[in-house]
């Protein structure tokens, strides 16, 4: 099954009853899958007039308690930024998938990782953060989609999944979780006042002190998320002297490269952030006590590398290797870099 | 049967002194009070001496739900 279809099937099984989206390559198959299958699961598919409309339809659906999702690719995700800021302000759960392509502008439809900053720093306005999950296989697209909905609901926050054209298009075998039954009631959801007092959802808070309280409340929530939700994968780190840091597609390639160089006795390993925000800072800090060389692999001109720098605070040497524009690096290419770096290290030691 | 008498009550503090009610009252029942309310507006007062017809023109045009008209 393709990554795009896996996103869709996993969402439906996670109880997503509202998908709104606008076509854009390389994630069209996701919307098309929803168009075909969500209704039979009791959900609604809406092809919105734009990405802007889509994110706002999601806001409406989420406000009344539905598990709602939208998806797009880079340019379309830029159009959702205002809406994402509103979701954060409203404290509404929702899942936003970005199947990244080359940029800026129309760029191209090849796989890229140039939207890391946008996703992790909030491309929208105001003080907010969105948890960001980065799958590296079709199986993981399914697993993390389910996880995204849970995180979104438990913290009442929009959650972003950052994939790329390759993950969306490639087919791999995948096993899905059982469809979830009866999700917990959301007492905060609007449902008409009924016999109770009327309620409202507003991101407008004219009183600056109230607004500040709201901002700090959000910060506390983000600290909670940082405490509980950090995910990452360690690969051959036990004896590693060179550690690659990469997520998604580049992490797969890095793994292959590490296998290769390991054959030649080079002690390389991989730390793969699965949550890009919150970023797995601690494991990096711990590694830095014995690992003196880190190499960050990205399909961009250098974005996640900032989070690695922020984590290590100059404790170890950090190299960056980026291939932007939709170029998919090869294991050989990465292997060569690990190889060179290792021998440099040995020299500098001697 | 005796013809009903109507009482007009103004919620002083809600009034914004826009004078729409005054404009539309054919019986001249309503007029500025000359006083300022909590909002700082010269609110409207109903003149007891004038006879209200219960036509509701004032309540219909009042943007602030500041007028109540009741008949006995």
């Amino acid at each position: 099954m393709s990554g795009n279809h896996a996103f869709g099937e996993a969402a439906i099984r996670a109880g997503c009853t509202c998908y709104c989206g606008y076509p854009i390559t390389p994630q069209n198959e996701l919307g098309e899958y929803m168009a075909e299958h969500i209704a039979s699961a009791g959900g609604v598919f809406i092809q919105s007039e734009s990405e802007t409309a889509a994110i706002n339809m999601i806001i409406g659906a989420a406000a009344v308690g539905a598990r709602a999702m939208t998806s797009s690719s880079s340019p379309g995700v830029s159009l959702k930024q205002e809406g994402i800021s509103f979701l954060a302000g409203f404290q509404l759960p929702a899942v936003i998938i970005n199947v990244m392509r080359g940029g800026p502008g129309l760029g191209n439809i090849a796989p890229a990782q140039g939207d890391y900053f946008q996703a992790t720093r909030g491309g929208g306005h105001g003080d907010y953060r969105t948890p960001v999950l980065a799958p590296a296989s079709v199986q993981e697209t399914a697993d993390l989609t389910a996880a995204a909905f849970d995180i979104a609901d438990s913290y009442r926050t929009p959650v972003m999944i950052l994939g790329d054209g390759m993950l969306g298009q490639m087919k791999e075998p995948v096993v899905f979780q059982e469809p979830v039954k009866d999700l917990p009631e959301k007492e905060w959801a609007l449902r008409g006042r009924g016999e109770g007092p009327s309620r409202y959802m507003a991101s407008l808070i004219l009183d600056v002190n109230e607004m500040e309280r709201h901002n700090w409340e959000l910060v506390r929530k983000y600290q909670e998320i940082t405490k509980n939700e950090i995910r990452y994968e360690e690969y051959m780190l036990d004896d590693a002297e060179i550690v690659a840091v990469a997520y998604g597609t580049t992490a797969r390639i890095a793994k292959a490269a590490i296998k290769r160089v390991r054959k030649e006795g080079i002690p390389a390993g991989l730390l793969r952030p699965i949550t890009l925000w919150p970023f797995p800072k601690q494991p990096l800090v711990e590694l830095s006590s014995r690992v003196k060389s880190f190499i960050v692999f990205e399909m961009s001109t250098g974005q996640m590398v900032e989070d690695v720098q922020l984590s290590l605070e100059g404790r170890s040497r950090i190299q960056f290797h980026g291939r932007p524009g939709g170029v998919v690096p090869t294991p050989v290419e990465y292997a060569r870099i690990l190889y060179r770096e290792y021998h440099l290290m040995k020299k500098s030691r001697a | 049967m005796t013809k009903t008498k109507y009482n007009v009550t103004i919620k002083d503090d809600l009034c914004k002194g826009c004078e729409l009610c005054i404009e539309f009252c054919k019986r001249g029942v309503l007029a500025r009070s000359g006083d300022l309310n909590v909002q700082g507006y010269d609110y409207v007062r109903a003149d007891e001496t004038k006879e209200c017809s219960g036509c509701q023109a004032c309540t219909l045009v009042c943007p602030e739900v500041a007028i109540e008209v009741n008949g006995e």
Partner: protein
Amino acid sequence: MKQLSKWPKYYKKDVITHYCPGCGHGIVHRIVSELMEEMDLGKRALCVNPAGCAVLAYKYFDIDVIESAHGRGTAIATGVKRMKPGLFVFTYQGDGDLSAIGTAETIHSANRGEHITVIFINNAVYGMTGGQMAPTTLLGMKTTTTPSGRNPGRDGYPLHITDMVAPFPGVIYAERVAVNGPAAVTRTKKAIRTAFQVQEDRLGYSIIEVLSPCPTNWKMTAKQSFDWITETMSKEFPLGVLTDKRPKTGNGGGR
């Protein structure tokens, strides 16, 4: 003693609004609140309020309210109604919100025939932001962004968006009304009642455009702005039913 007028059940008790003296929003708020009660909708109603002077509507309406990003009201309403068809969903939007930044959402929600009701407050300016030109601003009308009057060559013409959506098959009822006098207010209430009923009867989309005074930005007294609606504004935006596709009303099919 019989009570001729009373405080609307779904309007927050004795609330002091932030509206300027003589503002039409207050009048329409009262009408909507009264209908919530008379049509027994208040308990399951959800209002989508705009970015505009009515952004604080949730402080007045005593029903559930969700705010919208500027112009996106009908998209949010779509998400709500599709998920909870049992709710009574209406948007309350200004002319800038609905016919400028919200143009696409307005047109496509209408074209989908969403089962929602749109209350469209046309006051020919951007009130909230201090009186800039709106798509509905009349030719020659001075605003803060048309200091020498709206000039069609530079600024285009007054946009009649309600007329544009009225012909859509999914738009069941559309009417333009005003709130510039007792009789007009009564007609407006009737129109909104009809629009609400269309949604209740699961027929489709309904929209009521209300010509509404903005004394502050029109730089007029309340009474002057009432008269201006009669003498000038309603010439550009004629009052009346723009479409009525309700079954067996005889005049279905609109214009």
